């Protein structure tokens, strides 16, 4: 196989590219691990207050974000996949916006909406609801930037299931709701899990929008990426510890995706 690929100029170029790419991605990762291992008190930093506080906040906020995204995003993605109306096409394009929008801009935009001087911020404040610079703002920022990853993947998953499966299930006396849970959801499962994994990774790494909209308050809005940024100024130990923890998290997400999306059945 390899020999045959190398017989073509593009194959040679591609192989060269592959080697460069592996080095380009691999070298910094290895460097991070090596430097972390060289630190005098790596374990201490990992189990230290700064790291654990940030880790706890990151986990709690991202889990809540994922719950929001899955609960609202799944039916939404289904609608996008099945409806052909002009409206859904407009909304469909809107879903892609957070993917291309710089997160910092998303943060500024959310401030302009929910901030003290924002569009609906004062109204909310009148009701006793303040969002900016709270843990809620962290979740807002994560949902904003991460939701497209889940919705897009889920939509493609639903689209790949012929509607006939659902039609047949209904003729067998199964209500549309039960059909969704017994047919549609299991068949789209792998796509949903993939989307969830990507969205989670994106939410955990969220920095710009959080910084703008939620600030950098330890224990309240300082998630791991923000804690790394802060630690870089005072303690490389802490920064490296947090970085290694996030790296491990990313690798675990990748591995989990690989395992969970392996289907025991094939074909349609």
């Amino acid at each position, binding site marked *: 196989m390899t020999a045959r690929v190398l017989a073509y100029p593009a194959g040679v170029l591609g192989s060269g590219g592959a080697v460069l790419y592996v080095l380009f991605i691999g070298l910094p990762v290895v460097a991070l691990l090596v430097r972390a291992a060289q630190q005098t008190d790596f374990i201490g930093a990992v189990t230290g207050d700064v790291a654990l506080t940030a880790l706890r906040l990151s986990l709690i906020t991202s889990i809540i974000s994922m719950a929001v995204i899955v609960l609202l995003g799944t039916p939404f993605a289904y609608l996008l996949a099945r409806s052909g109306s002009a409206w859904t096409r407009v909304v469909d394009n809107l879903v892609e916006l957070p993917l291309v929008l710089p997160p910092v801009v998303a943060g500024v935009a959310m401030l302009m909406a929910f901030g003290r001087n924002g569009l609906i911020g004062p109204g909310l404040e009148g009701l006793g609801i303040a969002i900016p610079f709270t843990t809620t703002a962290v979740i807002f920022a994560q949902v904003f930037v991460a939701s497209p990853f889940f919705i897009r993947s889920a939509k493609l998953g639903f689209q790949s299931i012929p509607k006939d499966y659902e039609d047949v299930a209904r003729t*067998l*006396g199964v209500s549309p709701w039960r059909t969704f849970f017994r047919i549609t959801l299991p068949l789209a499962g792998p796509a949903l899990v993939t989307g969830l994994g990507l969205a989670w990774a994106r939410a955990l790494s969220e920095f710009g929008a959080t910084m703008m909209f939620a600030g950098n308050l330890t224990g309240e809005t300082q998630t791991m990426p923000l804690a790394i940024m802060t630690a870089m100024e005072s303690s490389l130990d802490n920064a490296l510890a947090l970085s290694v923890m996030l790296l491990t998290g990313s690798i675990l997400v990748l591995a989990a995706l690989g395992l969970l999306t392996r289907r025991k059945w*094939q074909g349609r």
Partner: protein
Amino acid sequence: MTVPEVETGVSPASGWAHCQVGNFDLNTEWHVEPGQVLVLFGPSGAGKSSTLRTIAGLLRPLEGHIEAGGRVVYDSAGGIWVPTHQRRLGYLTQQYHLFPHLKVGGNIAFGLQDRGSETARDRVRELSQLFRLDGLEDRYPWEISGGQQQRVALARALAPRPAMLLLDEPFASLDSELRRALREELRAMLVQSPVPVMLVTHDREEALALGDSVQVIDEGRILSTGDPLDVLGQPGQGRIARLVGVENLFDLTIQERNPRDGTMTCVGPGIRLEVPLDSHITGETEPKGVQDRVTVGIRASDIILARDELSGSSARNRLEGSVVSIEPRPPGYSVILDCGQHLRCHITGASLEEMGIQTGQRLWAVFKASSCFLVDEPRSRSAS
């Protein structure tokens, strides 16, 4: 909303519907007795599948009235609409759509209430035996053959004891031998649980083998309904004749009527035929010759090929011509003879060998006047 318990198969299924399907109108009506098969026959896009989907409640008509299982499931005037999952009609698609994440047993049991119960397991076992699927319950759909998949789909549709069966080209993706076997199984199944069946096909043989009656549909309209042999054997209207695949159609001029023999002589470029008298079309005993052009149909299987003129035979039509082409048409062959106009004849492989038929050879085509039938095709007549 509570649904009355449906007694399987004792009630006929009937109704009519007017639907907007894509860019054409579908106007259809049907009546099927329990245990009988109504075949919907026509080209693709004619509205056959849409008719089934309408009955199943997967397509909402503009107006209509649909009865199945002894109750009204749709009535536009009365504002009745029973959703698909409460209609209890078995629906089979051409690709079967077996649920790929469920094993054979899970597929068959899918529509059963209380799937874990002993009754449900008994029902699955019973159907597995009926459709010769025992031992396959723990396989996934992609692990079994096409014929087995077809049986699983049928078993799954029958498991919840539907009030009616809607089969959309159920045998289309199988080879002809398997089709024949499954047709027989379907027939046997209908004896056991006599439900009304509507079956969509564009295969003439299948329509003849399975249909108790046939309805020809084209462009959303019913062209004719009746006994399969009447409708498909000697179809009247030209459109139907073309749809059901009458191989030979000739536009001819009436030269002479012989009311005494009940025949007439028709001629066309290079061809002269004795055909039945046209009084059944004009409705007159003494046709006035106003109508002197007819379209004549002859089925390819009604023609006898002979090496020499069968003199002294009762057949009124004997045409000589040379063989233009020989095409395999399993199980036999299709021979095209140029007798002034091209004439297609179907013969068996044995006849082809015995007669040593080759292209270019001169042969006689022989057929009775009564094998010819007049095709009522108003459009071509007014045009000519």
